[in-house]
């Protein structure tokens, strides 16, 4: 929990990682990719405040103690949601798998939620793994990488019939939250890897699921905004938005926030630190202090209040994941409903 000026903010970090990208985990023959990947992530950290930068060695492999200190002790986070990234073709034990996350997290009851993943190209075996993971780790969300290139397949889309089978399985297994990675990607090469239109189809056909678009479709924020405005169950995952822009490019950050607040609305934006790319501490403190620059070009964006920030930092995600919020951190009567589906601009008229 973060407290400032007498206000208490319940913090859910809805997008974070516990990875091992050190040379001991690199797949033989794929070292250049394993190294390139983590160096690329490390460059993203460079967009945060200098005093929060890590050495590449530390960045490659941080410890359980580091994570607990950075995220919970110093970073104000109440509940953190692990989003797995497998990348087993480059990292022997995977980059950060559901299992690795849970093995660590189970030593800290109540602190973590373990999301899992699926890939429709895995067919029946994948459905079996999904069932197993839900049973074993009680996963209530998944992280999906539609642009992942694999063995001659150049990615997939959420509207594929095979993907629908998995979405149906999610409904049946009690998974409510589908986090789709729609952000910077490598593959597929000749297609538009940032296309978000598949989320539109799936969100319409699965109104009982929530679709959280992580990294808000960067570099295609506008496409994401136009989609989100039409689908009541589409949310904006702010990972990278806060970490990558708030410190490095404050004016662009203000504009992106203004656009998201206009099109998507404060009830449907969720904080994610993207730890270990960025520590949550400065992001939480910065967002609570944040307001638009006092200039004309920001004057017609929706205003942000303390209640807006409480929703974004934790209450919206708490609602999506049924996390109990202490009474002193809840909104007062008349301050709105977190994660309300009708908040987005134009939803009713779309």
């Amino acid at each position, binding site marked *: 929990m973060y407290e400032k000026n007498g206000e208490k903010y319940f913090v859910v970090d809805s997008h974070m990682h516990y990875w091992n990208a050190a040379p001991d985990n690199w797949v033989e023959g794929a070292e250049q990719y394993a190294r390139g990947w983590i160096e*690329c992530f490390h460059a*993203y950290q*460079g967009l945060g405040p200098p005093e929060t930068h890590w050495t590449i060695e530390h960045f490659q492999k941080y410890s359980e103690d580091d994570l607990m200190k950075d995220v919970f002790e110093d970073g104000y986070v109440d509940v953190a949601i692990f989003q797995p990234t497998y990348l087993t073709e480059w990292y022997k034990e995977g980059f950060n798998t559901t299992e690795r996350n849970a093995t660590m997290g189970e030593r800290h009851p109540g602190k973590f939620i373990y999301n899992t993943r699926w890939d429709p190209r895995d067919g029946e075996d994948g459905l079996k793994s999904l069932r197993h993971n839900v049973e074993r780790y009680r996963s209530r969300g998944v992280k999906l990488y539609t642009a992942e290139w694999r063995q001659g397949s150049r990615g997939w889309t959420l509207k594929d019939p095979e993907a629908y089978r998995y979405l149906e399985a999610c409904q049946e297994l009690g998974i409510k939250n589908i986090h789709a990675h729609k952000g910077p*990607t490598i593959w*597929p090469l*000749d297609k538009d*890897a940032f296309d978000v239109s598949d989320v539109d189809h799936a969100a319409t056909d699965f109104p009982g699921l929530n679709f959280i678009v992580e990294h808000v479709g960067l570099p295609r924020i*506008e496409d994401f905004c136009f989609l989100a405005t039409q689908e009541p169950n589409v949310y904006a995952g702010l990972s990278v938005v806060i970490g990558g822009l708030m410190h490095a490019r404050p004016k*662009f950050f203000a504009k992106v926030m203004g*656009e998201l607040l206009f099109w998507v609305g404060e009830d449907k934006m969720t904080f994610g630190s993207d730890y270990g790319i960025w520590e949550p501490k400065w992001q939480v403190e910065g967002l609570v202090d944040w307001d638009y620059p006092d200039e004309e070009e920001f004057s017609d964006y929706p205003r942000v209040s303390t209640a807006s920030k409480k929703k974004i930092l934790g209450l919206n995600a708490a609602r999506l994941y049924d996390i109990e919020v202490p009474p002193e951190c809840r909104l007062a009567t008349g301050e709105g409903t977190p994660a309300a589906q009708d908040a987005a601009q134009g939803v009713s008229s779309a």
Partner: protein
Amino acid sequence: MSASVTGGSRILAALEAVRDPELDEPITSLGFVTSCTVSLDGDAQVRLRLPTYFCAPNFAFLMVADAYDAVSVVEGVRSAEVVLEDHFAAAAVNSGVAARAGFARSFDGEAVGELHELRADFLRKAVMAGTDQVCRPLLAAGSDPLALVAMTLGELPASRELERLRQRRAELGLPAGDSAPLLIEPSTGAPVRDDAVPLHLRRARTTRVSIEANTGICRGMLRHRYGTRGLGEEDQ
């Protein structure tokens, strides 16, 4: 062979016409060019860098290929070589461009098509962003949004932004002359109707914010990666 400074600056000038298709900025001002030389015999060499090892290879390919084309037509250039460095697909991109192989052949098995449609998609975004750039000053000066519907490009005050918008529209084959309407749908070229104006302008603005924010991230990553300035790099 020795590098010629005069020749190098002509090459650099030619590279100013090459843009990052996603960011709609010249590769020179973005800091992507680290060296450009031309020998007395007319052999030109250009070295390019990108913000990350994993920048999308499709855009990387377009930039290397466009740079090759731009340098090749400079007067006095006999041969051109463009080398992308520090990128996971550098070998495929560099050899593919050198062999004039096209994208699909350069990434055999991983790509089935060329990149025209991708480029056109991003050009349409550039048109939307450019629409915001030229319309916002008008609106700030008190113009009624609906009044913009009747305006033509020729009625606008001359500006770099207007010139840029005209160029992007022309590249897409959209009307760009003085009598062309200011507000058009970039996918069809059709004039925007009265009732669609507020949404059109709102979308234009969002598109511009998206491109500018993305450019900000790319510039920050490049600076963190190298800490040196590229040839012709300009601060935003």
